[in-house]
């Protein structure tokens, strides 16, 4: 083995050791950081289309209430897509860092089907349910906030069902029932605050 080869091999060992050490440090640094499972940026409503004045019922964990908020968002003409964009505007509030009712990173509404004059089916993505906090109040506030927002903006909506990735799910995160239809006409669940 020539001196040159020995030198190159030694250089290679040093390089491997340095890279290994650097990788170890990167791993430790990454472990210290909070680990967002997905993109946490709020979903932006569509930029095109006419702007509409909509009502959002925003959940507040601190006092267990729904706050009625007005918002102007751009919505498409198709009724189902319009309903979806209104719910996405609501969810974007929950994905904000300062949200009064944080939802898991990446939560989104995939489709809204307005099946009958009084029935809506909302298909959410897996992050919506899988990353949802567990607890009666927090889960119920999410369901009530979505159902009331939809009922406020799609007149006549009485029965709402939430699916996850197109499938039925027994509960949202161990408590709130998703197996059955949620009846918005059954009376107000949570106190409303302005």
């Amino acid at each position, binding site marked *: 083995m020539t001196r040159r080869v020995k030198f190159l*091999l030694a250089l*290679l*060992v040093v390089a*491997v*050791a340095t*890279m*290994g*050490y650097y*990788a*170890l440090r990167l*791993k430790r640094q990454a472990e210290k950081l909070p680990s967002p499972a997905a993109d946490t940026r709020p979903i932006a409503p569509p930029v095109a289309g006419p702007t509409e004045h909509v009502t959002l019922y925003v959940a507040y*964990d*601190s006092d*267990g209430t729904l706050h009625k908020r007005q918002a102007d968002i751009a919505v498409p003409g198709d009724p189902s897509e319009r309903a979806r964009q209104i719910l996405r505007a609501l969810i974007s509030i929950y994905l904000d860092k300062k949200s009064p009712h944080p939802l898991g990173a990446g939560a989104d509404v995939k489709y809204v089907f307005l099946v009958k004059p009084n029935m809506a089916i909302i298909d959410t993505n897996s992050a919506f349910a899988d990353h949802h*906090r*567990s*607890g*009666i*109040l*927090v889960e*119920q506030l999410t*369901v009530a906030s979505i159902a009331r927002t939809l009922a406020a903006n799609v007149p006549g909506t*009485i*029965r709402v069902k939430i699916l996850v990735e197109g499938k039925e799910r*027994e*509960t949202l*995160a*161990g*408590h*709130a*029932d998703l*197996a*059955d*239809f*949620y*009846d918005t*006409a*059954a*009376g107000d*669940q*949570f106190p409303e605050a302005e």
Partner: protein
Amino acid sequence: MKHRTHFLAIPLALAVLVVTAAEDKYLTVYTPQAAYSIKVVDRNGREYVALLDVLLALGNPRVRVDGDKWKLRFNDTESEFKAGKTKAKVNRKDLHMPAPFVLESSQGFVPLPSLGPVISRLISVRLEFRETARRVFIGATTQFTAELQKTAPPKLVLRFSAPVNPSISTEPGKLRMVFTREPLIANVPAQTFDDKTIKGASFAEHDALAELTIQAGAPLQATFGDQNRTIIIAPVQQVQAQAAPPPEPPAATGPGGWPAQSATAAQGAASPVAHPRATVVIDPGHGGDDRGAALSASLAEKDVTLVWARRLRAALEQKGITAMLLRDGDTSLSSDQRAALANAARPQVFVSLHAGSTGSGVRIYTAHLGETGPRVGSFLPWDTAQAAFLDASRALAGSVAAEMHKHEIPAGTAPVFVRPLNNIAASAVAIEVMPPTADIAGLMTTGYQQSVCAAIAEGIAAVGKNGASGGAR
């Protein structure tokens, strides 16, 4: 060739180092007030713990960082540790540690083997540190005796010196009890019994918990008694399912205004287990594979609800109101099974217990019901069986909330869409208990549990006195 092997080994070893994820380790500290878990961290291949985390529950520690010096004032003692040094001054006396003190972001870490010597110099209470099992006992420990009663069938009676609440699981040939919150120790690690059904018992402690395993020749079940100071292990009783009995007239009135305990067993076709008729059925939420909410790193909702359910049963029984639990161990039950078992027992009141970490105090929920299905003869529609009892359930929720306010415990009521409330043919509420302050550990303090459960029992008793009848049956 030899050199080449070494060159290959280095990157491989580094790759293994990078890929291997260290499992989290914890240390459990048992004090007379509470048990709490602290993360054990790895520094330079040794196990360390943050000293301040241990001391926070034992007194009033104050820390001042002066360069590489970590100065601690705890109660009336003063100590000084220096980063990178094995010698420290604890309560003004020198202490030699097997590894250097670590100072990171103002947090002081001591090597795990030094924890016992450090704490014993700072407090005057008796301390026992079991380093291998990572368990620290401050004050009294809990001991137990095991006695095999050769009855037919045989029973193993475990008597504990203090109340216990283990997680119980079974597997072929074994019944395992895991004690995470109790300072349980054993004088004898293993016992063998001259019996084919209950063959022996062995005790082990590891990973910050204690484990009691019963070796069995047949499936076993555990029942609790004497305010959780006694656990009786016996073979599982096989009960033949029977047709639902005809409706019974209300039983004689008991001390709480509700019917007194009836000797009649309510055995429904849907119920796999026979229960004596109880006035109140308590459903500890979750269980088995369903852990419920992770209230903290070591506190699962299913364990909290079971502790609270047992406490509530005791509070009700003190008022002369009979109560039964839907699960008295770590058992998986679906919401339909819970409703079927509860309805088969035909109680006057159903209480579903849950625990949460958002907020403080107690929330009392009734069913959020919309359209109700048509009644067919004397049968109620399964999905909306609660509808006929909703007024009684709301009255019950109001009564419990009023008692909470009398005890100065924050309480609110709301209707929710949570099973199995909708399927219950009785006055039914779901109660979500939260800690008294932001500290989740407060949920497990005996005083708080007793206070809240006493208020729930008084709320149930008050409704019983004012007229127990719910909806149509």
